[in-house]
């Protein structure tokens, strides 16, 4: 049994009278500790798949099993609790809370857990150290460069020790050198934190850091499409 199993996973949206199906009966297995890159053209369903795996969107049909548990069937509050305990999300545009310092942004997921102040401080400091941004802990997002902001976002994603990290084009807004640093960091984290990392990217050079790369097109894996054609 794989760590994450997608079985005939579909997602359909209604936009006005139109029905859009960014994800169409997709099958996918992801193993624990794997660094998976998802590539494909715009509108191929990469981000939709990422959001479904992260539990911030629900499939229209199909099953999404994580460690054998179908998260698509969880209630909204149970799904929120599941995200809290299992998922770290890294965004392309960092999405740090602008009125909170780097430290406070990283601390945000831990406020949901009944931790002592000391333990909370230990975990936040460890996460900031791990991404090499501890010396900027009291800086606000506006005082940080793009690469530094993304490091803070990564620290926020790993601080609650999740089993799954999802990253939506984490280097899409960064220069080449910062992108390399961030990707190397993510690669290192999959080993150190031992979690499944699923990254959406347009950039083939970014995908080279992953242990496996899959391509999506019209809501299905290209590999699946080829199989169906033969």
């Amino acid at each position, binding site marked *: 049994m794989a760590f994450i199993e997608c079985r005939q996973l579909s997602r359909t949206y209604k936009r006005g009278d139109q029905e859009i199906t960014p994800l169409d009966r997709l099958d996918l297995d992801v193993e624990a500790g794997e660094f998976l890159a998802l590539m494909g053209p715009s509108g191929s369903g990469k981000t939709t798949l990422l959001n479904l795996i992260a539990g911030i969107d629900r499939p229209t049909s199909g099953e999404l099993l994580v460690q054998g548990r179908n998260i698509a069937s969880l209630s909204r509050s149970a799904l929120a609790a599941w995200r809290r305990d299992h998922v770290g999300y890294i965004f392309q545009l960092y*999405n740090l809370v602008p009125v909170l310092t780097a430290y406070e942004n990283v601390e945000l997921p831990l*406020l949901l857990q009944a931790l002592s102040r000391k333990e909370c401080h230990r975990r936040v400091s460890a996460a900031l150290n791990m991404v090499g941004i501890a010396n900027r802990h009291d800086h606000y997002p506006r005082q940080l460069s793009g690469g530094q902001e993304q490091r803070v976002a990564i620290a926020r994603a790993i601080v609650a020790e999740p089993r799954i990290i999802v990253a939506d084009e984490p280097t899409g807004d960064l220069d080449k050198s910062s992108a390399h640093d961030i990707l190397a960091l993510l690669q290192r984290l999959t080993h150190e934190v031992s979690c499944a990392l699923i990254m959406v990217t347009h950039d083939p050079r970014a995908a080279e850091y992953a242990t496996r790369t899959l391509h999506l097109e019209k809501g299905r894996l290209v590999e699946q499409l080829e199989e169906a054609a033969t």
Partner: protein
Amino acid sequence: MIPVRMFPLVGKYIVRHRVRTLLTLGGIATAMFLFCAVQAMRSGVAAATQETASETTLVVYRENRFCPFTSELPQDYSRAIAAIPGVKTVAPMRIVVNNCRASLDVVTFRGVEEAALHDADFRLLGGSLADWTRRHDAAIVGERLAERRGLKVGDILSAAGISVSIAGILASDNPQDQNVAYVHLGFIQRAAGNKQGIVTQFNVEVADPSQLDAVASAIDESFASSQAPTWTSSEKAFVARAVTDIVQLVEFAGWLGIGSLVAIFALVANAISLSVQDRAKDHAVMQTLGYPENLIARLVVVESLGVSLLGGLFGVAIAWSISWFGQFTFSVEGLSVIIQADAETIAVGLAICAVIGVGAGLLPALRAARLSTAEAFRAV
């Protein structure tokens, strides 16, 4: 409510949106100040005019006269009044004011006999009754008048062409005592128009509160056919008649009070709505991190409550300070309505702010909670 560890987060949202918060707080504080000022006037009017079952004081005035300058009664009525069954004490009083119209700075001289002051229900904050007794031009002044005019024991108070020496400063729960200068009856009769033997009114203490109306009727009947007939009523009813204009003004001001509450609601609701709109992305991020929708809603409500209470607190503090240091007293015909933002006004103001804070935060909170995370990120 929210977990205690979340309160600093709400505090940071309030404090670090400095401009928005300060503007909102300024608006709320101004509106709450207005509300408290109106409430202070209303409670002042209530304290001065609302009768209770334990009333024992009657005021005997000249019939169909409404001003201390025109109410003239023979001082020797006091013997006849004292003889009426149920009457405990009679205090003839000559009243002189420096301004007959409604004003915030009226000095009311009350000329009384020595016994009346010895029996009076007040305490001295400074000076002594003995000094007042010794000196014919001495005055015991109310605390409010002393503070407003900056008077100390030994100072000279001049008003309405009369100068008196301050022999003491009194504190009293009776609003009518707080703004007066008690002087010797004979002195004021000579100083104001040389009208010896003439008084403005009699203050009559009745032994049994239930006999108040009966005694009032008996007094008026006694002098019905005399040259100077009387009109007797309880002290509170007497004040209510004299300050009718103020009562009407205050009733109208009540609408201003309600208007200021609506303004507070609109301000808080607007500030929180805009804040929720601005922070749609932050809330989406929080949902992604595992914040349940109802917790995000509660965070918004607590923020709304915090802003409303903080603004309210500033407003009541300003109202209390201004009314305390200003020592305002509305006076008309020598009768006073004290304007003071008391503890009840402050408590009511803050309670209303709390209710408004929660109410104004509910709709934005629902909006924040119903946000679809995936949609929110697509919109960014």
